[in-house]
């Protein structure tokens, strides 16, 4: 029977290869992690997983890792950690037992049993998941009544919604709240220094009375300082230049346009 879990692995080839010490034909990408590889290898022993020869398994795995590294230099750290642990376990299983075992370490046999137990557990879960997957499923093998229009009896009056829905509803709103926060862009101002320099450069052209609005840069509506900022900074700069005596200004009445003109004699200076 073909193995539903590991289509990329040829068990017989792997078993023979492990025994012969030859290259294993194994694709690391076919596995989720070291435990899944170990399980595939364990199956080659064709015994109850609880009666597994852990020693043999360790050898098979080390051969696997060795080969995988030879073919592809990079190998996930998980695989190497498992290899190191198995090498350690193997050495402890092979060495004669000390008369007094170190207190802090479980006996090697127990470590081996733990590994066998984990493999048996994972295998049981894989078989269970396969049993669930291949069993009759709603909407695939069996169907309930399809007519959506007819009268429907709703089972029990319990309230719908689970904890996940509650969390989802909560986070959804907090996210909206976060994105709702008003973040005005700081207004950009036309620097006074720039206005002053520009006005000084313009002095030769201001022999006649010119409206302030015509002197200030137009600016662009898309980016940069606003028109108001240009006008305000230009006015401030013009007042400074008036104080210096380089410029004169007049306004006929309140709120009327302000006119600027270079002072006679200064225009060419």
């Amino acid at each position, binding site marked *: 029977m073909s193995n539903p879990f590991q289509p990329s692995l040829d068990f017989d080839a792997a078993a023979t290869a492990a025994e012969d010490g030859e290259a294993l034909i194994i694709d690391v990408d076919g596995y989720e992690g070291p435990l899944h590889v170990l399980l595939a290898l364990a199956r080659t022993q064709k015994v109850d997983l609880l*009666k597994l020869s852990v020693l043999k398994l360790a050898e098979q795995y080390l051969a696997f890792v060795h080969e995988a590294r030879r073919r592809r230099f990079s190998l996930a750290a998980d695989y190497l950690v498992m290899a190191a642990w198995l090498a350690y376990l193997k050495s402890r299983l092979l060495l004669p037992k000390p008369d007094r075992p170190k207190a802090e370490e479980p006996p090697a046999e127990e470590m081996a049993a733990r590994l066998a137990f984990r493999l048996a557990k994972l295998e049981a879960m894989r078989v269970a998941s396969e049993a669930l997957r291949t069993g009759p499923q709603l909407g695939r093998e069996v169907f309930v009544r399809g007519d959506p229009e007819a009268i*429907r009896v709703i089972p029990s009056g319990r309230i719908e919604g689970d904890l996940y829905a509650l969390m989802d509803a909560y986070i959804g709103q907090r996210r909206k709240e976060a994105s709702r926060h008003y973040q005005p862009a700081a207004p950009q101002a036309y620097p006074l220094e720039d206005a002053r320099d520009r006005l000084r450069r313009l002095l030769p052209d201001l022999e006649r009375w010119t409206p302030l609005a015509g002197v200030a840069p137009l600016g662009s509506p898309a980016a940069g300082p606003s028109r108001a900022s240009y006008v305000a900074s230009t006015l401030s700069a013009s007042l400074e230049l008036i104080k210096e005596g380089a410029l004169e200004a007049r306004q006929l009445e309140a709120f009327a346009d302000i006119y600027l003109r270079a002072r006679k004699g200064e225009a060419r200076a």
Partner: protein
Amino acid sequence: MTDRMETAREIEALLFAAAGPLTDADLAKRLPEGADIAGALGELAERYQGRGVVLAQVAGGWRFQTAEDLAWLMTEERDEPRRLSKAAQETLAIIAYHQPVTRAEIEAVRGVQASRGTLDVLLELGLVRMRGRRRTPGRPVTYGTTDAFLEHYGLASLSDLPGLAEMKAAGLLSMDLPPDFAVPDPNLAQADEDPLEATDAPEFHVDFLAEE
């Protein structure tokens, strides 16, 4: 018509019109007082035995569903089921058999970190729910399956999970090495040992552990 037959008719109509499985309590609430629900259900089950539509017990309730062997007819009704990844399937099985179970325990069984998307998908599909918190340091959240899970896989209850009793008997559903777990002596467990014979192996070994 006998009372029981009338009750059977009524249950038939109710289950037919129901949007989901109805429990005995649901039925009792809707039927006249004193109706022999168990008897009528038995009658219905018998009546629908072997028909194109059968009575099934799922998620603690009853529902009508099409017969399994007629799946080939239902091409139009079949909505392309969202295929669970292998990792998600395995995770679902671990949650189903070990619930309540924490994320760390799921990862311990699989030997790999649960990648993003595995648990999420199961939660989103409503197959899995958060059940509560383990009373251990850190109070991790525990996961379990939902009624939708039972309904989807046509299970009457969690104890109907395939192989559950055998796994429990073998100690495979505990998180740690069970105390009576047979510790193989690696010095004896060489390649020359015999596989378990069919006669001394409980059914479990055949079904869930033995090499296929």
